[in-house]
């Protein structure tokens, strides 16, 4: 089956929590995980994979290339220029939020500590952005 969400996330816990939340929300998406910015950029180069991709869940603080660098490359690549990118990160620093939107993020969501809120947010993100970018 084709993967349709690219999760850029270095924390294995957060990865698992996202997968749990998606499963709870009944979203049967295939999630590809990149543990750092370089892995994420390598996947962007795979045209076949990108053709099926429906959204990117992007953490900002990841090793090697950070989230902003990855975002820049997504927007610079013809195959991924229109791919919805949701920044999903711990930071609620104003300058991070402004910079992410400036670089072309579609949505900026702060990861809540409370898992009930967390899973709500993931559910909404999954439904909205996946639906918006449904491939026919």
């Amino acid at each position, binding site marked *: 089956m084709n993967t349709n969400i690219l999760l850029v996330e270095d924390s294995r816990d957060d990865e698992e*929590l996202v997968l749990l939340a998606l499963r709870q929300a009944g979203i049967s998406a295939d999630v590809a995980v990149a543990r750092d910015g370089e892995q994420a950029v390598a996947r962007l180069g795979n045209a076949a994979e990108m053709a099926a991709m429906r959204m990117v869940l992007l953490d900002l603080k990841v090793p090697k290339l950070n989230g902003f660098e990855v975002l820049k490359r997504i927007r610079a690549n013809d195959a991924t220029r229109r791919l919805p990118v949701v920044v999903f990160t*711990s930071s609620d620093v104003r300058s991070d939020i402004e910079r992410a939107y400036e670089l072309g993020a579609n949505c900026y969501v702060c*990861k*809540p500590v*409370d*898992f009930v809120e967390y899973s709500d947010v993931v559910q909404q993100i999954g439904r909205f952005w996946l639906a918006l970018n449904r491939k026919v």
Partner: protein
Amino acid sequence: MTDEIMIVDDSLTIRMDLQDAFTAAGLATRLCGNLAQAREAMAHGAPALVILDVLLPDGDGVDFLGELRNDERTARTPVLMLSAEAEIKDRIRGIKRGADEYVGKPYDSGYVVARAMALLRKSETGKPRAPSILVIDDSLTYREELAKLLGDAGFRVTQAGSGEEGLRRAADGRPDAIIVDGIMPGITGATFVRRLRLDPGLSPTPCLMLTASEGAASEVAALDAGADAYVRKDESNMIVMARLRAMLRQAEESRERSRAAGLFDPKRILAVDDSLTYLEALAEHLRLDGYEVVKAKSGEEALELLSVERVDCVLLDLQMPGLSGTETCKRIKGSSALRNVPLIMLTALEGPEAMVAGINAGADDYVAKSADFEVLRARLRAQLRRKQYEDENRNVREEIMRKDAETRAVRRNADARAELLVQVEKKNAELQMLNKEMQSFAYSVSHDLRQPLRSMDGFSKVLLDKYGGAIDDEARHYLQRIRAGAQRMGALIDGLLLLSRVTRADLTARPIDVGQISRRVYDRLRDAEPGRNAELALTGDLKGTGDDRLIETVLENLLGNAWKFTGRNTAPTRIEVGSVEQDNERVFFVRDNGVGFKMDYADKLFGPFQRLHSEEEFAGTGIGLATVQRIIHRHGGRIWAQAEVGRGATFYFSLGAPAAQKAAV
């Protein structure tokens, strides 16, 4: 001002002769044959220097000098009087009227040009500047009062609270004059003046002492110590000012006098003899050596002239009617200002007793009168050389001491300034580093510290959802406790981050409506708990000036607290946001009818992590009010609270003046 020398003389010969001499020296001239021409020439601009005859066809040169001195443009222009008048009274009249120099006719044109050049140099260096005054008094009130008066009068003022500090400040600042209180704890005014007079670099500084008592004794003590003037403290400050001005004027004059007699300037000789024939012959011969000779016919005239004009040597006839040579000599040598002027006694046929008396009176040398002036000229040269040698020595000594004192003061100042600069730079660097550290700390807190909490809360929740049926109540309770702990920690981190951000955030003050923001905040609280019986009342004028985002944070906390602490009310919740005018300032308040608190704890309210209620009673982080206080302080305002247990609490805050908000950081 032009660079021209204006020559006013009715003799065409003199005008041409002086014009030639000045042209040869590279100076332009403007020639006037009478006062009318001189006045007309003045209309075309003030000259650099004026050479002025006294007897002119259409008036008195001294009167024209008065006109020059009264004219703003020429009040300080050097004026050299050139006159054939034999009467020494005219000479004194001219100098008293403000002439800088008086040369008798017949004159030596080289001498006139040399004097003119010296005067031009002097007027260039003698630019006025605000004199600096050191005020030493142990009473701050008196000091401030005097400093203000002096400052208003255009003086620069430094202050010292004790004699010891005064000595230090005098050495560092080298003031133009000092005003010192006679009676102070520590060293007294008299001791201060004595020490000042011992310091060669400071000894010429004019000193005015303030004495407290009526008695003549304290005034004598003041003068005895070396003060130049004294004023009783109960006298008006205007008298202090007048005395100070007189003191500064005298000091300026004595400086001018010593400057005027430069070492290489042409020499001026005062010849005193009752015989006009002898004086003429003497002058004739001395002029050949390039000396300017001033002729006085009596001891009285000589003394009067010496009081207004400085000379380089005095030739004094021993036998004169009126004031005798011996008596005149005594007076001259008894005056501190004239003591150093060489004096040669001229004797005719007097016996050795008279001569000894003359020498005893202080004469530096004696010469027997004769028609042969060679001996006199040689003796005169010797005396002038000696005087010049002494002056040179003294000037060099004074210069060295002055330079030394200046270097010391400059070095001390520079050292202190450099040290201060190093300290300030170090502190700045430290602050910048701390600020940077704080920022990266806050950033990593916001990024990294919340992740583990999400794991705790998230996996506990999953455990509860998935395996809740397989574990007993106790196990479920523990999992709930883990989740509560993680969430509380998350709230604490959020609170701390907000507090640190509020401190650094830019503050933009604009008109705001506290009522409107309160309504918005209250609606959010209500939406979260729609079942509660509650109302919000907005009273008074709630317009203010502040940063809307930060003030919203303030109201979120204050209304949030009001909402929280009314949560157990039996009566309906009533929250009031209003304003009162207090000390020309608008004070806003948020009042509730909740549980209140004991006023004993009022001062603890605004400290971070201070809580008046247990977590059991009311949840909270203890950071909210600390954040509120910081925001209010950054606006330049104040915050305080009034409460009673069981009767609700009221929080008051002001937002400061709009101007203060910009300055507050």
